């Protein structure tokens, strides 16, 4: 008897709880692919400026995309915020976005937007090699200047980089390797196989390896510049270098979710994030993204790091349709090792 009554009561309590009424204030839900320490100051500035309350949850890009796809029938969020372009291109293929062209759309370079307005870029984020200075000194090495330098025996079991199942950093890295090999998949995967003995750990998040590299527990890795410069700024003795063959840069995107429950609020966030209003905040918060908007100047010390680097954009028209297949191939061929 008691059991029945309590459980019914409990059930009702839970149901009421799950269906708490929406607050009067306009709200917006987002998944952020940017780590919390980058996304939060941006979204808080937006809240202050617009009066819209932003709820967000951080996921690595693979996780965020997977969730958005899984929730397609009943979207839980309005905006996908941040994350490399290949994730957005894959999202377009999965039909999870709806178009919205913000006011900045016309001013942006072609690689910073989807022609149909499915996504728009809010920043640019090149990959870099980051190595531990003491590790280099101990092994009498220079900071790596070529992809092939990473095959040096000193790096055996000493590199950390992201896992392609969860991280967009990893997918951007794989597409970089494809590009420097002329999109010859056999050659690119052969290179990755040769690099495999050097890998100590595949991390869930793109920046996961930065601290072990900073501490010297790992010798080096391939990271987005925003994570690498942050590691350096915290005081870890690391070096940042670029391969002479070139390395990819990913436009960081934002997109409106198809079937969003708060489309107007979502559009406002997209308009704001793609404009100088947000992108001038990068420098103030010491976030080393390269602004996507042409009217926002790159912060001078960041520009100095990038000055002589050979950097090419990841082509979303190529990456989008091939992402799933390439990641699966990576899981089957590279992940298990030799």
């Amino acid at each position: 008897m008691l059991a029945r009554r309590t459980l019914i009561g409990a059930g009702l309590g839970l149901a009421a709880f799950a269906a708490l009424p929406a607050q009067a204030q306009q709200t917006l839900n987002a998944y952020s692919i940017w780590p919390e320490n980058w996304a939060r100051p941006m979204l808080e500035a937006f809240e202050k400026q617009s009066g819209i309350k932003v709820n967000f949850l951080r996921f690595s890009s693979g996780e965020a995309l997977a969730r958005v796809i899984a929730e397609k029938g009943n979207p839980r969020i309005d905006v996908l915020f941040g994350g490399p372009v290949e994730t957005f291109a894959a999202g377009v293929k999965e039909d999870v976005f709806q178009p919205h062209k913000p006011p900045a759309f016309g001013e942006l370079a072609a690689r910073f937007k989807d022609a149909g307005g499915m996504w728009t870029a809010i920043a640019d984020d090149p990959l870099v090699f980051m190595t531990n200075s003491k590790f280099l000194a101990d092994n009498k090495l220079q900071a790596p200047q070529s992809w092939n330098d990473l095959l040096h025996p000193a790096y055996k079991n000493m590199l950390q980089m992201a896992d392609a199942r969860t991280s967009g950093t990893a997918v951007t890295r794989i597409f970089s390797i494809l590009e420097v090999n002329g999109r010859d998949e056999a050659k690119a995967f052969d290179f990755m196989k040769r690099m495999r003995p050097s890998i100590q750990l595949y991390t869930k998040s793109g920046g996961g390896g930065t601290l072990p590299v900073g501490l010297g527990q790992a010798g080096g890795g391939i990271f987005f510049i925003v994570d690498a410069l942050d590691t350096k700024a915290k005081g870890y003795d690391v070096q940042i270098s670029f391969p002479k063959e070139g390395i990819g840069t990913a436009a960081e995107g934002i997109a409106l979710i198809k079937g969003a429950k708060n489309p107007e609020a979502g559009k406002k966030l997209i308009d704001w994030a793609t404009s100088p209003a947000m992108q001038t905040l990068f420098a103030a918060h010491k976030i080393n993204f390269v602004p996507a908007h042409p009217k926002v100047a790159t912060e001078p010390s960041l520009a100095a790091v990038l000055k002589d680097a050979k950097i090419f954009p990841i082509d979303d028209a190529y990456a989008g349709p091939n992402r799933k297949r390439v990641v699966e191939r990576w899981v089957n061929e590279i992940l298990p090792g030799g």
Partner: protein
Amino acid sequence: MLWLGVGLFVLYPLAMLLLRAFLAEGQLSQGPLFAMLGERIHRQSLLNSLILATLVGGIGTALGFVFALAATRCELSAPARGALDALAFLPLISPPFTTSIAIIFSFGPRGLITHDLLGLTGTSAYGLPTTLLSEVLTYFPLAYLTLKPVLAGIDPNLEDMAASLRAGGWRIFRTVTLPLCIPGFANAFLLLFAASLADFATPLILAGSNFPVLPTQAYLQITGLFDFKGGAVLSFVLLVPAMVVYLLQRWWVARGHYVTVTGKVGPRALSRPLPTAARIPLLAVCSALAVVIAYFYALLFYASVVKAFGADHSFTLAHYRVIFTEGLKAIRDTLIIAGIGMPLGGLFGVVVGYLVTRKRFPGRHALEMTVMLNYALPGTIVGIGYLIAFNDPPIVLTGTAAIIVACYVFRYAPTGVRATIAQLQQIDPSLEEASTGMGAGSFETFRRVTLPLVLPAFFAGLGVMFVRSLTAISATIFLISIGWTLITVRILENMTELALGPAAAFSVLVVAMVFAVTGLIALLLRRLRAPGTMALAGSMGG
């Protein structure tokens, strides 16, 4: 009604998981299973998981036994025993991967221990040894808490008899004490084996690329690729050893009772202390382990109050400011969910325990078995099952707090069920019969007679619910949503982004909150004059 709840939140998700794993185009088939096992990484992961779980089980049981011997047979003073208990309690109430942080700092080419202290080169912080160390430290207390009552429960008369037959101390230990502990060993081993088999967070951080394990692979398969089918198949592979372990454990526990049921011991119920020669190595091992645990937690605390561990060691409270501002939502959500889950879980435990022991109805044992199922299965399976079952109509719960609460209630209330059963078995049913005989209804009797008698079990259940709500991650990580997130998930997220300061600060907060609440409950229990703390501590598995 009870069956409805159990069916919905225990059987239904499990059934959906199996369906998803074995249904290919509307047909049952083992195709997906073979396809998964055909991939080398998954076979390798399965093997690695079994190796890891076996080692954790073996080493953890041995350490737990040493601790239990020290606690029961070394004539330690009460404060020393208290310290031993507190130390064993610490890893149990921490989020399962807190030691991983300390291990990353301590081992490897620049580790505080391997490099700075020992001057070793060419070591690695990643792989089987460090994963093993972390899991052993985290789970050995389960073995300690299982073996301590077993050792304490051995009738001293048996050993005294052996002594009067002129058997030497070592001989008594070997031929009397040890054999009596065998069911306890088996129980502890299996508990640890299952705990390791469910742990995906420690290997996620420490296993490295050359030692993939199955729970982590299933987690990445689901969260990264949203490959439900692949994840379901991998969990099924995990399910088989977990079920074997569960059934074995039930069998052993059933047999194990003969140790304590030796009748009333005489007034001189003191166990035989060990000779000094045996005590020294025992206590040395305990102290060493204690130092290691204390060192890891000190390091964790240190990491929470410096700017950037390894680079900038100036003091700061910034990380605490971060968790109390940005992390506030996670803290609030966690406490709300724990607050709802606690009374529900406590009540559920008492009610099911009461029905199973006191009422005769068909399917009684089946109910008990089923209720224990979610507790016995690795959290990854439960979480993935919930995600698959409640993501689509007819019952959509993903994204709500309800799904997390339900997960906690049906996963951790079973410890309350157990505690209630144990409590009720010591209470003569005639008390209740007297009440009914005097005309009180069955509800009235339950409320006025039985309930007060099972209060200690109820509070023990509450304690477990709270601790688990704050520390568990393996199941609930699949269930968090934009509206509801959890501290443990934040910690893991911070760890994998290597925002170590906030991760460490969150962990310190969790340990502090759990100590406060369990302390309060222990105090309440003492006022109820019931030895319930053991039931609380002893039921932290999974």
